[in-house]
């Protein structure tokens, strides 16, 4: 330190300003040792003077350095010159400011930002006690004032009248300076130095010496000053303090970084955080990284400001060391603790490819967090402070308390994010379970592909895909696509297991967001289970008042769930939120005025009519009735109803079998069928099940009488008189007695018939007949009614007219038949009414 002081003294003597300007003008090389030695000799003489000694002891870092009391004597002795030079340079050094020595003796104070970097460096060399980091930063008010005054004096004082060569002589003195930044090189100036005589030096010094102009003008902080980089803060104010703290911190950071590059980091030093980055997100200029603390493994969020982020470039998978001081903040309402003040961070490069990255690394695309809404003030006055505290999301707290299982489907869906990753677990109630045909599920699987999910493998025997309509505690619905099934029993098993229960959805993927417009069928089902029988939870986990006025949601999500990811939560028999399907009578259903509603009922199947057997367009009409319609008192409604089974509805094989074999009586239970515009449909959410004899009906079945309003594809009862016979379609042919097959062969003896199908031999085969007759009905006038008769009716009709030659048409005419149950399969109302019927038998 003493040595440095000595150096300073020497510099003072040697018009440091000139020397500085030399450096400022391009960093002239310092002279070599021989020259400096010569200079030192020169300088030594001054050192001996008492004045200099006295000055040596003064504080270097003196902000409150008094203004220079310069004497005006021009012809000062060297002592005086030394005196003056010393004081001014001292101030200059302490202030750390410099103005380029103006060419004219009295230069007004230059704007401070004209200071060049070189001058800074030179200043650093000269300024021994001042913090180097203070130089480029905004200085305090007082400092600047003194700098101004000092530099003003300085500029006046030191007139660079000396030649550069002379100045360089003086610069050789700096070889003793300890500042490592300065480089020294040999130059020919050494030679020049020797030529320089002391007298010349004195003369030049004197030329520079003059009474410095006391700086009176202060730069007033004018309104336009806000654009200036340097600000003068209020002394003792918060800004000044922060400025000081921040500069100190900045210098510490840069020093640390410099040190880090040279030394190897020791991860096991106490206080050093080791984090593995899991995710990076940008939040309002800072980078928030989700990290795992190693080796404990707990998750936290580390915030890095812009500078640090640029330095370490966090990327998922990186390991980062954070050196103290850092701060750990645990906030209520935040899931993880937050690490702040992460200035001293260092990335540990693990992969080779990270090292090979050269040049400026391209900015890794980081997800930007949605900016906070403008309606959310970060600070509220006292009155509303209370409300802010109350509105801390309790939902999150409650959720965390219960082992991390979400109660809200919407939250879980949001967690999936746009990338379609898996999310869960969520607690839901299963309202309905149904199965969609495999052809339909293929379409949905294609959507799944889009959602980056692997659809479950479908084997050849799969008949359908199970789906479930679920609802969470807040009322939100979701349609789950579960596993594929290959048998009826599987469907039944899963339905029994899940329906009405509270289940845990461990993992799911979002396939689609559905809206009411796009999926009217699903939403008609949702409407049928709305409103829920118990109060739902609102966002604050408070029970809402009964949601009578609240309408059902207009959107829901279709989610895909892999097998095994949905489990029933034990301990629950049936959830209170579950709203099972209510069975109604057909009469009630028909009386319902709504345009579209879901209905569930049990009914006897009277007749099945296949309208189109095309697999994809399969449409089957089932004619059903129940006791309510068969009841005597039912006069306004029809006696039978047709139910249309669309291709989207999966019909279980047991039902199909029962329908095909025409087992009588066949009772089916329809759940969640749709009644639209008076017609009942079975869509994909409808479940049809076989019902054992749950009710009996009085036979014979009563049907509506045929009347002019009889609709196509309906059942009716007809009575009439035969007026004509369609001879073109009148056939009779032999059939096997046993199997009723028409593949008969006459044996050789022409006496016996052999059935090719079953091998029976018979003498007299049975006869099958087909006869279509025209009727005249009293209820219908001016109507042509044609009916295709059943076997039994034909037989009874013809038996009365049997003759040996066969059957005579005339004998049939005029007979009255009926009441017959018939299916109206043609209605032609173009010119005259033409109705075609098919007789049905229900026995």
């Amino acid at each position: 330190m003493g040595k440095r002081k000595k150096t300073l003294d020497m510099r003072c003597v040697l018009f440091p300003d000139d020397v500085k300007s030399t450096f400022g003008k391009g960093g002239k090389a310092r002279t070599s040792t021989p020259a400096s030695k010569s200079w030192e000799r020169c300088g030594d003489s001054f050192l001996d003077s008492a004045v200099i000694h006295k000055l040596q002891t003064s504080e270097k870092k003196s902000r409150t350095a008094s203004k220079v009391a310069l004497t005006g004597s021009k012809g000062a002795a060297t002592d005086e010159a030394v005196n003056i030079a010393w004081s001014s340079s001292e101030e200059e050094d302490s202030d750390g400011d410099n103005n380029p020595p103006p060419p004219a003796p009295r230069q007004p104070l230059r704007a401070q930002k004209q200071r060049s970097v070189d001058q800074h460096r030179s200043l650093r060399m000269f300024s021994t006690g001042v913090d180097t980091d203070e130089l480029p930063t905004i200085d305090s008010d007082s400092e600047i004032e003194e700098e101004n005054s000092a530099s003003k004096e300085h500029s006046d004082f030191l007139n660079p009248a000396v030649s550069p060569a002379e100045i360089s002589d003086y610069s050789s003195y700096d070889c003793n300076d300890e500042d490592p930044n300065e480089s020294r090189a040999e130059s020919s100036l050494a030679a020049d130095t020797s030529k320089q005589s002391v007298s010349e030096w004195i003369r030049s010094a004197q030329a520079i010496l003059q009474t410095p102009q006391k700086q009176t003008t202060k730069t007033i902080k004018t309104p336009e000053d806000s654009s200036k980089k340097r600000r003068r803060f209020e002394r003792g104010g918060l800004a000044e303090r922060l400025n000081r703290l921040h500069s100190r911190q900045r210098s510490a950071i840069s020093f640390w970084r410099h040190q880090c590059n040279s030394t190897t980091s020791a991860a096991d030093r106490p206080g050093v955080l080791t984090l593995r980055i899991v995710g990076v997100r940008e939040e309002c200029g800072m980078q928030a990284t989700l990290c795992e603390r190693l080796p404990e493994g707990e998750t936290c969020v580390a915030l890095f400001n812009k500078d640090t982020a640029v330095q370490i470039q966090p990327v998922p998978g990186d390991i980062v060391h954070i050196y103290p001081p850092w701060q750990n903040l645990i906030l209520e309402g935040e899931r993880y603790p937050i690490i702040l003040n992460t200035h001293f961070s260092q990335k540990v490069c693990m992969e080779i490819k990270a090292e090979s990255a050269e040049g400026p690394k391209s900015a890794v695309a980081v997800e930007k967090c949605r900016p906070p809404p403008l309606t959310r003030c970060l600070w509220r006055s006292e009155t509303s402070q209370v409300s802010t505290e109350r509105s801390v999301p309790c939902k999150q707290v409650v959720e965390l308390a219960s082992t991390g299982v979400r109660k809200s489907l919407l939250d879980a869906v949001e967690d999936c994010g746009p990338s379609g990753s898996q999310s869960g677990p969520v607690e839901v109630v299963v309202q309905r379970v149904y199965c969609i045909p495999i052809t339909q599920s293929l379409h949905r699987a294609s959507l799944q592909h889009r959602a980056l999910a692997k659809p479950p493998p479908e084997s050849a025997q799969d008949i359908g895909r199970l789906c479930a309509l679920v609802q969470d505690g807040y009322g939100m619905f979701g349609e789950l696509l579960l596993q594929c099934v290959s048998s009826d029993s599987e469907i039944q098993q899963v339905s029994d297991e899940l329906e009405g229960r509270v289940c845990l959805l461990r993992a799911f993927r979002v396939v689609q967001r559905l809206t009411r417009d796009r999926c009217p069928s699903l939403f008609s089902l949702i409407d049928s289970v709305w409103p829920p029988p118990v109060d739902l939870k609102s966002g604050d986990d408070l029970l809402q008042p009964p949601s009578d006025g609240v309408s059902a949601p207009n959107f829901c999500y279709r989610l895909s769930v892999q097998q095994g990811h949905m489990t029933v939560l034990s301990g629950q028999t049936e959830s209170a939120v579950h709203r099972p399907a209510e069975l109604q009578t057909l009469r009630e259903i028909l009386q319902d005025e709504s345009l579209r509603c879901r209905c569930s009922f049990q009914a006897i199947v009277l007749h099945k009519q296949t309208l189109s057997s095309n697999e994809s367009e399969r449409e089957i009409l089932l004619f059903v009735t129940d006791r309510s319609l068969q009841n005597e008192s039912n006069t306004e409604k029809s006696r039978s109803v047709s139910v249309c089974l669309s291709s989207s509805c999966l019909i279980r094989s047991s039902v199909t079998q029962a329908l095909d074999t025409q087992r009588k009586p066949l009772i089916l239970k329809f759940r969640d069928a749709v009644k639209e515009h008076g017609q009942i449909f079975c869509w994909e959410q409808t479940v049809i099940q076989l019902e054992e004899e749950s009710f009996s009906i009085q036979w014979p079945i009563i049907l509506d009488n045929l009347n002019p309003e009889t609709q196509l594809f309906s059942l009716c009862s007809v009575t009439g008189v035969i007026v004509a016979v369609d001879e073109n379609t009148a056939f009779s042919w032999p059939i096997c007695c046993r199997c009723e097959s028409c593949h008969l062969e006459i044996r050789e003896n022409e006496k016996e018939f052999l059935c090719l199908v079953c091998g029976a031999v018979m003498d007299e085969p049975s006869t099958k007949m087909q006869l279509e007759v025209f009727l005249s009905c009293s209820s219908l006038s001016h109507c042509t009614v044609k009916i295709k008769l059943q076997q039994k009716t034909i037989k009874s009709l013809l038996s009365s007219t049997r003759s040996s030659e066969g059957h005579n048409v005339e004998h049939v005419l005029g007979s009255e038949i009926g009441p017959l149950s018939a299916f109206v399969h043609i209605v032609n109302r173009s010119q005259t009414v033409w109705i075609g019927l098919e007789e049905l038998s229900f026995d």
Partner: protein
Amino acid sequence: MGSSLVSVAEQLLKDLQRTYSEIKQIPDDLLIALRFVFGPCALQALDLVDQHSVTCVSSPSGRKAFQVLGGSGRLYTCFTSCHYCPCPAFSFTVLRRNESLMCKHLLAVILSQAMGLCQQEQVSDQQMTHILSRQPEAST
């Protein structure tokens, strides 16, 4: 998902208010934390606070607004109910680039409120109307 930075900022402001009400001074660590969370505008905001640039303007109707005398001498009006400042720095840095939580004026308003250093001013309802409707006014 919420922003953790916003939560940290809220907590910091609460702590600041509590500490200042107790010891009438802001400790160094809170100052540095302000700089960390709010970025470069923290220093300028503190400067505005030092100079008592924030005025809470209230009218007989009960309306309140905050007026900040910016460095350039311009008066910026901020409100109690929303997070907005008409200065160009806010429009650019906060709204457009989303690089900062707020501008120096807003932070100055918040800090002045937290520390109770707002100047109070009573104006008539008509003047308040002018202020709220952002009619051009004399800036100083």
